[in-house]
């Protein structure tokens, strides 16, 4: 089937399919890959073109602010426009390709982490993780959290129960690293007879029928025709911000928006707390020191052609410390030793004297889980975009538990490394400086959270909207909690799982 530029369609055009997918990012495309050559007629409605376009990108602009206790508010008004891409392939155009499965503890209901717990566990996703790895040309990750088969290095933390190696691998389909390979991935679904991709087709509203199901979608091209799309089933796959924006803006039948009777749409926006530190960093003098007698090659995240690992604290240690999940990613790039007389130099010397090991200074960054917070949310701005749609606005809130979890995790790593004589840690980030120190994560999660019951979220365990029987959501917006890995592999696994469900649902299995 063709790829159609919707700007050339006549005004009033009606698009019809069995399944209408809103958004041609990685989630939507994986769905299409899975449904290709099936009996399901699929229409993908992508608001952008084949490549990113500055004018279309402006549709994403909106005000955004980060807030956290003890920190001055940090305005990040460029964030909504710059942290995602409106084009076929979505944010995959700038995706670095890093992938890994969530840990088992990320799915668990943890008494010390409010609003934690997925409706299913890690085991449920295992076959879908495997298939997602095949799509993204990755080695498969073992269910037990171990390293992919054939990984040529051993974990450093084998000697300690407190420290675990969490596997990561780079997909060769990264749009940032290999645009041509990523283009082939994006183009492949359109070669199937049952897939029709519409470009520049901006969905502006979901319209409900009297039974509370989606009746049709309203579409509009920038300076172009207005259309409708009808399907038996609909999947929102427009990203963690746009999914919420679209549901909230579709308020003609219901003032609170679609699928929002429980008031969860847009809430619990989560990224990750990502803080990079280094000796040369003006923020401080942070170093991870590890004994060089150990083989650290497994933790080198620079080679893209083999799996590597990041450090995580063992789940029992997380519970004991009352922290969320947190990863420590090392850089093994040669790093100048701290200057003579500096505290860091003395700490390294002291470590060497106590343990009888030669230590080197290594940079690391911490990525910490953000706790779901109902007040961290996407809402609609009073301003409208060029399509007349209310802009999204973001109030991204962190709580004291996030700061405590970050600092508690740093303490936990210090205990784990020191407790085995593996190294010493410096974590100089002051709690009052966290917001200014962090890189705002582009992992948009939680705004259409999955839950076992309608009172606790927007979609059920099948990613179907609790309140709207023919509406589904794909993408990281359904993550109830963020876990501690880049979300692409998990959102791909969920999309594959959804594709299987939809095939059965539409009688095409």
């Amino acid at each position, binding site marked *: 089937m063709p790829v159609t530029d919707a700007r050339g369609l006549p005004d009033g055009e009606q698009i019809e399919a069995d399944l209408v997918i809103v958004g041609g990012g990685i989630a939507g495309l994986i769905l299409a890959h899975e449904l290709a050559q099936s009996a399901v007629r699929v229409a993908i409605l992508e608001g952008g073109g084949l490549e990113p376009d500055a004018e279309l990108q402006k549709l994403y602009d909106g005000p955004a602010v980060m807030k956290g206790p003890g920190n001055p508010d940090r305005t990040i008004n460029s964030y909504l426009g710059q942290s995602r891409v409106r084009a076929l392939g979505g944010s995959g155009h700038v995706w670095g390709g890093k992938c890994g499965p969530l840990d088992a503890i990320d799915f668990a209901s943890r008494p010390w982490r409010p609003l934690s717990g997925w409706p299913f566990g890690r085991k449920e996703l295992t076959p879908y993780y495997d298939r997602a790895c095949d799509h993204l040309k990755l080695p498969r990750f073992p269910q037990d959290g171990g390293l992919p088969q054939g990984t040529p290095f051993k974990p450093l933390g084998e000697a300690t129960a407190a420290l675990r190696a969490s596997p990561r691998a780079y997909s060769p389909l990264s749009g940032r690293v290999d645009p041509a390979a990523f283009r082939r991935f994006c183009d492949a679904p359109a070669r199937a007879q049952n897939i029709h991709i519409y470009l520049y087709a901006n969905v502006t509203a979901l319209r409900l029928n009297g039974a509370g199901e989606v009746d049709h979608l309203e579409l509009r091209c920038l300076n172009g025709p207005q259309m409708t799309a009808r399907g038996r089933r609909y999947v929102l796959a427009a990203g963690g911000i746009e999914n919420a924006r679209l549901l909230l803006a579709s308020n003609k039948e219901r003032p609170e928006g679609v699928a929002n009777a429980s008031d969860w749409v847009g809430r619990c926006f989560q990224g990750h707390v990502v803080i990079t530190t280094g000796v040369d960093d003006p923020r401080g003098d942070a170093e991870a020191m590890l004994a060089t007698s150990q083989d650290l090659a497994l933790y080198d995240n620079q080679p893209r052609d083999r799996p590597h690992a990041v450090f995580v604290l063992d789940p029992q240690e997380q519970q004991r410390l009352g922290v969320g999940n947190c990863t420590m990613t090392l850089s093994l790039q040669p790093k100048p030793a701290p200057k*003579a007389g500096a505290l860091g130099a003395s700490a390294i010397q002291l470590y060497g*004297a106590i343990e009888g090991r030669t230590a080197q200074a290594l940079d690391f960054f911490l990525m910490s889980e953000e706790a779901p917070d109902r007040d961290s949310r996407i809402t609609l701005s009073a301003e409208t975009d060029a399509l007349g749609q209310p802009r999204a606005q973001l109030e991204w809130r962190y709580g004291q538990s996030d700061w405590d979890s970050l600092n508690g995790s740093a303490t936990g790593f210090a205990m784990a490394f*020191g407790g085995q004589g593996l190294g010493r840690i410096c*974590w100089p980030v002051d709690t009052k400086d966290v917001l200014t120190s962090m890189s705002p994560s582009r992992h948009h999660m939680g705004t259409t959270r999955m839950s076992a019951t309608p009172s606790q979220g927007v979609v059920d365990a099948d990613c179907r909207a609790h309140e709207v029987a023919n509406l589904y959501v794909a993408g990281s917006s359904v993550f109830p909690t963020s876990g501690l890995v880049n979300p692409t592999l998990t959102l791909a696994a969920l999309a594959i799982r959804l594709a299987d469900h939809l095939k059965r649902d539409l009688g095409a299995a």
Partner: protein
Amino acid sequence: MMLSKRSLLQALYGLTAMTALGRADSGLARTPALAAVDAEAASKIGRAWLAINPSDAAGLRTAVFGASAKAPDLAARVRAEYRRGAMFKHEGWFFSETEARLCALISLAA
């Protein structure tokens, strides 16, 4: 407590030679690792420890080296302190309490 820096470091060198690696590498005794510790920087850590633990000063030597003549296994003790979170954080760096006390001894000897 009045200790000359020389006698303190001599004591530390001797103890270091008894650590696990010291036993495995008898050359360590002849090339004491603690000689490489920058006393000035270590003193900063030590003074910071004493500032919040002033009563610690009187018993530092015993706390670090113990009362018996037998040399303590500093590495094992330090590791155990890290494992149970008996740590002191100064300007971002995590030290075990024994490491902090070692630095305090160095600061007093300086």
